[in-house]
C-alpha cells in the first residue's frame, strides 16, 4: 500500500510523516508569516524569532543562508517555505534557480523547454 511506501525520488523532498515531525517548528514559524506583524517581528530580529519557534541550529542556519534545499532537508514544507520566500520578496523561479544551481534565466528557459515538451 502506498501509505507506507518507501519509494524515493532523487532531488525531491517528500513532505511525509518524518518531515512533518522534524520540521514542525520551522513550518509553524513560516505559517506565522501569513501575518504582517509576524513578518515585521522576524525582520527586526530573525534569530530571536527563530528561537521563539524552537528551531534547531541546522534550521536556523538554513534561514540565515536563505538556503531552500537545507530547509527542505530539515523538514520544511515547500508551501510554508514559500511564505519565507515571500518575506524575502523572491518568487518560485528564484527558488527553482537556487535549488537547481541555475541562473534564474536558465531555470526559466528550462521551464519553457519542458512546457514545449522538449524533455
Amino acid at each position, binding site marked *: 500500500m502506498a501509505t507506507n511506501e518507501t519509494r524515493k525520488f532523487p532531488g525531491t523532498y517528500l513532505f511525509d510523516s518524518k518531515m512533518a515531525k522534524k520540521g514542525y517548528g520551522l513550518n509553524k514559524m513560516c505559517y506565522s508569516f501569513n501575518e504582517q506583524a509576524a513578518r515585521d517581528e522576524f525582520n527586526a530580529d530573525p534569530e530571536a524569532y527563530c528561537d521563539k519557534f524552537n528551531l534547531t541550529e541546522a534550521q536556523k542556519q538554513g534561514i540565515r543562508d536563505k538556503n531552500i534545499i537545507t530547509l527542505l532537508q530539515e523538514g520544511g*514544507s515547500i508551501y*510554508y517555505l514559500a511564505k519565507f520566500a515571500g518575506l524575502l520578496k523572491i518568487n518560485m523561479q528564484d527558488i*527553482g534557480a537556487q*535549488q537547481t544551481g541555475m541562473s534564474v534565466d536558465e531555470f526559466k528557459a528550462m521551464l519553457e523547454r519542458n512546457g514545449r515538451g522538449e524533455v
Partner: protein
Amino acid sequence: MAKIIGGITTSHIPAIANAMAQGLEETPYWKPFFDGYPPVRDWLNEKKPDVIILFYNDHGLEFFIDKKPTFAIGVADEYHNADEGWGIPTIPPVTGESDLSWHIANSLVEDGFDMTICQEMKVDHGLTVPLNLMWPGHNYGHVKVIPVCINCEQHPMPQPKRTFALGQAIGRAVESFDDDLNVVVFGTGGMSHQLDGERAGIINRKFDLECLDKLVTDPQDLTKYSNFDLVEIAGAQGVELNMLIAMRGTLLGNVKELHRNYHAPISNTGSGLMLLENNAPT
C-alpha cells in the same frame, strides 16, 4: 432537483492573481494562457449556475499541519480570503451556500466519506484565483460557492481512486437535493509541476495532455495511479491532479468536451483549462 450541468478544470496558481492585479493579461507571456478563458466565461454567463462546487487545496492559510484534514467541506454562508504572506491582493468575500453544503456533508458521511465540516474557513488562492479568472474584476459575489478542500500538501494524501469516488459521492448528493439549482464543479490546480528540490521545474506536457483526454473519455483510467506514481511522472505537486479527478467524478451523466486550452509553462506549471458539459445529448 439540483443538477450538475458541467465541470471545469483550471489552474489556480498565485502568479495568475498577480498578473491580473497588474493588468498583464495581454503581455506575450500571459496572453496564450488568458486567451483560453473567454469561451468558458461566455458559457458560465449563458448558463448562469446558481452554485459552484470548487475542489482546491489549502496551501497553508486555513489549515496548518497541527490539524490537517484529508477532506474538508465548507458549510458557511460566506468565506474570506486573507494575507497569505507573499503579497497577492486580498479579495472581497466569497458567497456560500449552506443548505446544499450541509446536505452534501450529511450525504458524504453517510456514504463513508468522513469529512471535516467547516462553518468558518479562510479560503486561499486555490479557491479565489479560479473565481476571479471566471468572473474578472472580482464579480463572483452572485454565485454561491461550496469549497471542498483536499490534502495535497502532506503525505499521506488521499489517492486518486479515493478522490474520484469522493467526486462521485458528491455528484449523487447533489442529485438528491430537492431545490432546483444548477451546479457547476471546478477542479482546480496542477497540472504537472514540482516546486521543491533539485528536481524542481518538471513539467510533463505529454502526460498533462493525456490526462485531459482521459478526463473526458475515461476518467476511471486515471485512478490506476497512486500519488507516488504522480510524483514520479508529474512532479511532487503533480498530485494536485486529484482535484481534477474529483471534479470529473461528480459528472455522472454523458460528458462532452466543449473547450480546452493547455498552455505551459505558467510560472512553474502546466495549465489545463477544460470545459465539460454533463448530461450532454448523445
